[in-house]
């Protein structure tokens, strides 16, 4: 195959960036990415994702730290000598050049002759399934097609790293899924180390080999999708990735693997100290996902009153108000005829397993 796996490793080594305005956009970020991996940079808007991407591409010189691609420290290289391909959120196709000229642009910059350029552009357009569009102008293409062209253009220079900044944000839902599959397919074929910036957690979890979660310029967690989802290391990760119930409580007793917590809602449960050891008597926030709560009988668990029940297709979500007045959501799989809960019914709830309740030291 022409595109032999060309992915080079990428190391972000203690990178900090402060804008001249004084804003600290990223702070001491460390990422060690293997050649050929797909990584998602996940975080809310304004957390520094784009800044980090632009540092890797060379558009911004970081205040501190190093960027290492393969065996080379690239900090002194300008963007046009880093061999980093970028797909911009708005695609940034050259509006006055035809599709094939857009795709061949990087090859022309390398002084490759016209015949080879055209052949290569055509091959790439076939790769992204747009072989018939070569002579059109960008504005004559739909959003999804423009994005495929942007991908082809970035791949044409055979980059060692491919960066995508919120690549699917502007697409509608069906097209987004198509393009996510397409990008994943192209990445498999080319083996290019790929970094996708996104604020959409589903996108990050479904596309990436590993997910780096950022908040306020800091790296919160860097791990596999199941690590991030099932074993979050910080309260931020637990609440930002997936939905969760946050229940305040006090530590009764704790060791390294389990903590007994007295919830304000009125029950003692066993939880996992997710962010490190917990102090006895300290206040904590326990996170339990809606699908990890169950209705129990007898006197176990904590009590609540059912407010509203929302049937959401395969699951039913119940809103339950607990004794301390806070609301929790419980998601129940719809197996056979799930017994409908009446508004106002008194119920008791407990986590499915102690490992599914994560306790974090409460922040003030």
């Amino acid at each position: 195959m022409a595109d032999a796996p060309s992915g080079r490793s990428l190391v972000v080594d203690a990178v900090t960036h402060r804008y001249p305005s004084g804003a600290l956009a990223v702070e001491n970020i460390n990422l060690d990415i293997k050649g050929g991996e797909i990584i998602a940079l996940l975080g809310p808007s304004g957390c520094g994702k784009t800044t980090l991407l632009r540092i890797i591409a060379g558009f911004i010189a970081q205040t501190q730290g190093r960027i290492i691609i393969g065996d080379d420290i690239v900090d002194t290289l300008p963007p046009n000598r880093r061999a980093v391909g970028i797909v911009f959120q708005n695609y940034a196709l050259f509006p006055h050049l035809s599709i094939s000229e857009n795709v061949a642009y990087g090859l022309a910059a390398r002084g490759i002759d016209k015949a080879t350029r055209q052949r290569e552009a055509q091959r790439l357009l076939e790769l992204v399934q747009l072989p018939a569009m070569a002579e059109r102008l960008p504005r004559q293409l739909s959003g999804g097609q423009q994005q495929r062209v942007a991908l082809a253009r970035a791949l044409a220079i055979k980059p060692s790293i491919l960066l995508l900044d919120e690549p699917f944000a502007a697409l509608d839902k069906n097209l987004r899924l198509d393009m996510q599959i397409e990008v994943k397919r192209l990445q498999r074929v080319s083996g290019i180390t790929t970094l996708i910036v996104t604020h959409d957690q589903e996108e990050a979890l479904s596309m990436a080999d590993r997910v780096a979660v950022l908040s306020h310029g800091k790296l919160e967690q860097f791990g596999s999708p199941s690590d991030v989802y099932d074993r979050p290391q910080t309260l931020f990760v637990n609440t930002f990735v997936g939905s969760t119930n946050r229940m305040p409580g006090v530590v009764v007793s704790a060791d390294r693997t389990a903590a007994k917590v007295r919830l304000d809602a009125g029950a003692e449960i066993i939880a996992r100290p997710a962010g490190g050891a917990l102090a006895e008597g300290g206040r904590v926030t326990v996170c339990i996902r809606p699908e990890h709560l169950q209705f129990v009988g007898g006197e176990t668990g904590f009590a609540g009153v059912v407010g509203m029940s929302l049937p959401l297709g395969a699951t039913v979500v119940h809103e339950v108000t607990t004794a301390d007045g806070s609301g929790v959501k419980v998601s129940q799989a719809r197996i056979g005829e799930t017994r409908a809960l009446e508004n106002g019914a008194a119920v008791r709830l407990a986590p499915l397993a102690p490992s599914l309740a994560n306790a974090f030291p409460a922040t003030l």
Partner: protein
Amino acid sequence: MGAAPASRDVTTYGMGLAVPLALFFLVFFVAPLLQLLWLSLHNDTAGLHWGLGQYLHFLTDPFSLGVLGSTLLLGAEVTAVCLVLGFPIAWLYQRVGPRLQTIIILIVLLPLLTSVVVRTFAWIVILGRQGIINATLQSLGIIDTPLKLLYTQFGVVLALAQVQMPLMTLPLITALGRIDPNLDDASCSLGAGSWRTFFRIVLPLSLPGVIAGCTLTYAAAITAFITQSLIGGGQMLFMPMYLYQQASTLQNWPFASAISIIFLLAVLAVVSVFTTLGRMSRGYGGA
């Protein structure tokens, strides 16, 4: 009748609103122009004998043709100077912070805020025999005798370029501002250096602004009566002054009218070349 009556209210405009302006144009622009044309078609100053004599006279007279040629050339030189000096200013404007942008826009607009007469006299002070330039060069010992700057083509081009600069810079600033800054980054990340990015991306995409700026500067430069006459002095004659002499001094109204019409057609020809180039630039790379 209308196939889609529902959309009629959106697509039809009240033409009545344009009537005052249309009347104004008719009375103060079209009518004088027709009068000019009518006058120019007479062979005698009294306007009694019809004929194309005035046009024949102009087109066979080397002196008149020389004035026309030097005027058109002057416009081209001023436009070229404005483009070469104005483009970097517009380019810089798009790349500096908001505070510097305010300063640049102020400097660009300043010439428009002072009277053209004042600006022109300032240039006389700068370019004169004992002017700032000659005084400086002499005190530095670079020259012994003063350079002749005033009453030269060089002086006229320089002064006109300064006076007309906003007409070039403002359209360029607008055109460059419309270019998505990501295109620069995209070009760079694809391996292009700054010169390739400039010639392949920035320049082609700013062409509409270049054309607009050139058209405005050109039209303004060749008709700039005051600056042309004050800096050019008696030895240099351009079309506006030629026209003025024929009409006011020599009272030869038919010939002055013919000069006007010929000048008008020459300017229209140049402007339509610019416009054609502009239309081509919009379809640039479309093939």
